[in-house]
């Protein structure tokens, strides 16, 4: 396989994490993003659950893409997604009951996460299995990354702990502000993170474009 082909095959993986980051760029799946990120562990596990469902549903939708009639495609996708999200729900209830409790309603609501339907409709239904799986992994990792990051910030600022370990000196100094754990803090952190992410992506893109232009000038 030529290098260019390889690069193209793996492209969905990297664009999913940065350029098409579901949370900050596409603004999809905002409900779980805001609701479960009160701590880093919750964010991480929700991200991983979504990643699993996304990879499975992308693979299945891609396999079935030539069999599903165009008219009933949306109910068909929802059924595929619902099957896998029920599976995750049952596994988590059995093996991780604490996590199941803290994610609560939102675990069942993975099924209406717009990321899943959006990827099934706009990517998996048009592409072969392998790119679809890679796209699922990329988007899923990007989602997990942003959820963990948001959870990390909110936990640190709101409860003075990192991944559940309390930082004594922060608490003693009276730094933790409960507002970050409250819904209002969720909106606020999300808003500011989006500002930063947008600014960074824009700067990087401008630099890349400038470099490309410079390289093109040399040739």
């Amino acid at each position: 396989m030529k290098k260019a082909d390889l690069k193209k095959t793996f492209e969905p993986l990297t664009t999913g994490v940065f350029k098409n980051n579901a949370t900050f760029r596409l603004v999809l799946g905002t409900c779980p993003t805001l609701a479960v990120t009160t701590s880093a562990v919750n964010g991480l596990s929700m991200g991983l659950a979504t990643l699993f469902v996304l990879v499975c549903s992308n693979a299945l939708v891609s396999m079935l893409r030539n069999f599903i009639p165009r008219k009933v495609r949306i109910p068909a996708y929802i059924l595929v997604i619902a099957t896998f999200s029920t599976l995750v729900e049952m596994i988590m209830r059995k093996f991780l009951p604490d996590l199941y409790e803290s994610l609560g309603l939102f675990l069942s609501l993975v099924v209406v996460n717009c990321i899943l339907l959006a990827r099934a409709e706009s990517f998996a239904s048009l592409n072969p299995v392998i790119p679809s799986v890679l796209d699922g992994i990329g988007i899923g990792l990007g989602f997990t990354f942003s959820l963990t990051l948001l959870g990390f910030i909110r936990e640190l600022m709101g409860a003075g702990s990192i991944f559940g370990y309390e930082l004594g000196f922060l608490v003693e100094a009276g730094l933790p502000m409960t507002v970050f754990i409250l819904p209002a803090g969720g909106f606020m952190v999300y808003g500011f993170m989006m500002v930063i992410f947008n600014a960074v992506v824009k700067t990087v893109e401008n630099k890349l474009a400038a470099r490309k232009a410079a390289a093109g000038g040399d040739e």
Partner: protein
Amino acid sequence: MPYVLLLVINAVFVNNFVLSRFLGICPFLGVSKKTETALGMGIAVIFVMGVASVITYAIDLALVAGGMEYLRTIVFILVIAALIQLVEIFVKRFSPSLYSALGVYLPLITTNCAVLGVAIMNVTELAEVNVLYAFVNGVASGVGFTIAILILAGIREKLELADIPDSFKGFPITLLSASIIALSFAAFSGLSF
């Protein structure tokens, strides 16, 4: 009767669907550019939530009787998707004026997690459940959604005229406005019983 009142206050203010439960954020951010469209979306949501609450409650009785609670998510989402199609056909046939008012918002509601959220919540989280309470909870949650989206739409209309830094344009500034609304709604948590 007191319980009904409590349900309404709880769903509209204390545990507002959008601002404290984080359900239905996508339409909250997506369809809140103008107050008219926000109102249209709100009414469609109230309508669907009320109907969906009753129907999913009845279906859940059957599921529990059969010992198949694990099928809840799949069955509910399919029922809601089908229900929205039905409602669309029904409204189109019997009230064209309402249909044109709701427009594209009806099909969009399928992916509104608030509807599935209220259906699941009715059967898992309510202290006392019967059909009436489920219906009231559904409608009141819809009203809560409408109030939140109307407030945000009002703010966004004003923001159109404001001079906003480049990186803040679009979603970020909307999220920050939502944050301030959520902060004021947090005060209602003192009302919880």
